[in-house]
């Protein structure tokens, strides 16, 4: 049984956390993610969850306490954004290397400086190689659905990796949308009891060591094993999506193709901007232009084979990066998509647009311009500029 209600992105994430009912949540507030744990703390005070709620003095401590709880053998969560995620940095890597199935909503917000509270992807793009799974959501519905699925993915014995679930700051976190929600019981049944897949820290009869020293003779083996866990989790993500579709009727994959199959011109983008781009795709299709869209849902692990397959046969591709890489060669998404396309026969021209930094609006006209550029690139077979900026004052 599903119910249709209107919630903001933060309310939907908090509700999903309540329905997941984790054993421990350790959190520190930060705009625009504050509401998630603020609302969740109401659930705790009102006795609606069994969660031990730990108020800490910083995000570094929030992630450390969550890590400790997870290592002790319980389901542990936190939530953050921007500078908060940056402050967790050190512990993010440790959580991933211990292969702890922590699940964390992250509300995407620009990193300082200058100080900015609005949405872009520089926070989580910076953490892209910390060893966490990264799942990006277009809207409130997806944020809710992705968070519930993330628990099953992270805790699967073949995965056991921490997972962050993203939505765009303010655009989604503070905007009210209709969504369908599951009952508490259905979510509980879907996520299941937390299972120990290995010894836990607080098993006094079977003491273990967590966080040992491993130097040149062992460090590399542990890292190789960690990399393998990331490589093998794609089937689990798809299996969980399949079960979730059976429960809700809502289908998820590693990416979503929108009118992509026969498209000549394609945009690749994450999160809420996909919604804007879909409107332009529909508009162009009416005019007879074969425009399409690929919205990447799972950025880590990066599904390079699936993306190469979905994007091969296009004539021109524009990758939209909501974070600059400062590499002088475009954003992270562009670099990885281009790399994935290298082995494709007759690979299309691929250009990058850095956009929406610090919450800069991206509207229909911006997307129209990108498709117009792509049409020109497809026609002439060359791109005037490989990396450009969308919506900046020149």
């Amino acid at each position, binding site marked *: 049984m599903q119910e249709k209600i209107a919630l903001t992105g933060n309310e939907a994430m908090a509700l999903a956390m309540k329905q997941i009912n984790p054993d421990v949540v350790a959190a520190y507030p930060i705009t625009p993610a504050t509401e998630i744990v603020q609302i969740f703390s109401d659930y705790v005070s009102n006795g609606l969850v069994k969660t031990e709620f730990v108020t800490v003095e910083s995000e570094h401590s929030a992630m450390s306490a969550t890590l400790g709880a997870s*290592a002790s053998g319980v389901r542990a969560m936190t939530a953050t954004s921007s500078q908060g995620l940056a402050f967790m940095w050190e512990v993010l890597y440790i959580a991933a*290397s*211990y*292969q*702890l199935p922590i699940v964390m909503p992250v509300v995407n917000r620009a990193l300082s400086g200058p100080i900015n509270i609005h949405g872009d992807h520089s926070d989580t793009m910076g953490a892209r190689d910390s060893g966490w799974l990264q799942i990006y959501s277009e809207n409130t519905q997806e944020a809710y659905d992705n968070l519930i699925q993330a628990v099953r993915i992270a805790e699967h014995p073949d995965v*056991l990796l921490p997972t962050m679930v993203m939505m765009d700051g303010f655009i989604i976190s503070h905007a009210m949308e209709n969504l369908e929600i599951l009952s508490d019981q259905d979510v509980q049944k879907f996520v299941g009891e937390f299972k120990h897949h*290995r*010894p836990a820290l607080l098993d006094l009869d*079977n*003491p*273990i*060591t*967590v*966080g*040992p*020293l*491993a130097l040149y*003779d*062992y460090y*590399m*083996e*542990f890292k*190789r*094993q*960690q990399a*393998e*866990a990331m490589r093998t989790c794609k089937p689990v993500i798809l299996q969980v999506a399949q079960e979730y579709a059976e429960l809700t009727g809502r289908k998820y994959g590693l990416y979503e193709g929108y009118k992509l199959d026969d498209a000549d011109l394609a945009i690749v983008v994450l999160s809420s901007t996909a919604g804007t781009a879909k409107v332009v795709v529909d508009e162009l299709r009416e005019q007879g232009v074969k425009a399409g869209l690929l919205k990447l849902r799972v950025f880590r692990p990066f599904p390079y084979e699936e993306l190469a397959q979905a994007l091969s046969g296009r004539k021109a591709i524009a990758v939209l990066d909501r974070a600059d890489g400062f590499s002088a060669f475009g954003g992270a998404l562009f670099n990885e998509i281009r790399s994935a396309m290298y082995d494709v026969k007759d690979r299309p021209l691929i250009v990058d647009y850095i956009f929406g930094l610090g919450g800069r609006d991206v509207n229909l006209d911006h997307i129209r311009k990108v498709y117009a550029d792509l049409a020109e690139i497809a026609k002439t077979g060359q791109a005037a500029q490989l990396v450009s900026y969308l919506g900046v004052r020149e």
Partner: protein
Amino acid sequence: MSNLLTWKEVPKGAFLEKPGNAADYETGDWRSIKPVWIAENCIQCFRCWVYCPDAAIMTKDKKMIGIDYKHCKGCGICANECPAKPKALEMINESDSGDN
């Protein structure tokens, strides 16, 4: 390196089910000089055992019986502290030791 575990064998996330296993972790190969025990000079005072910052002085039946070279770091403290005359511990260069 043959007795070391492969990446498929190491415990997931480095959760070690056998705690306190530092004794199995051989760290003696950092050493450039090493103590040599001269048994006939030893007065069994146990000063070396007290001062060794590792746990590299081996004992049996309340007797000092030699150096655990798999863990001795070659700091030289034991030889410095040894009160026996002549000393029962002498530091030599690893390159002169002819073994290890």
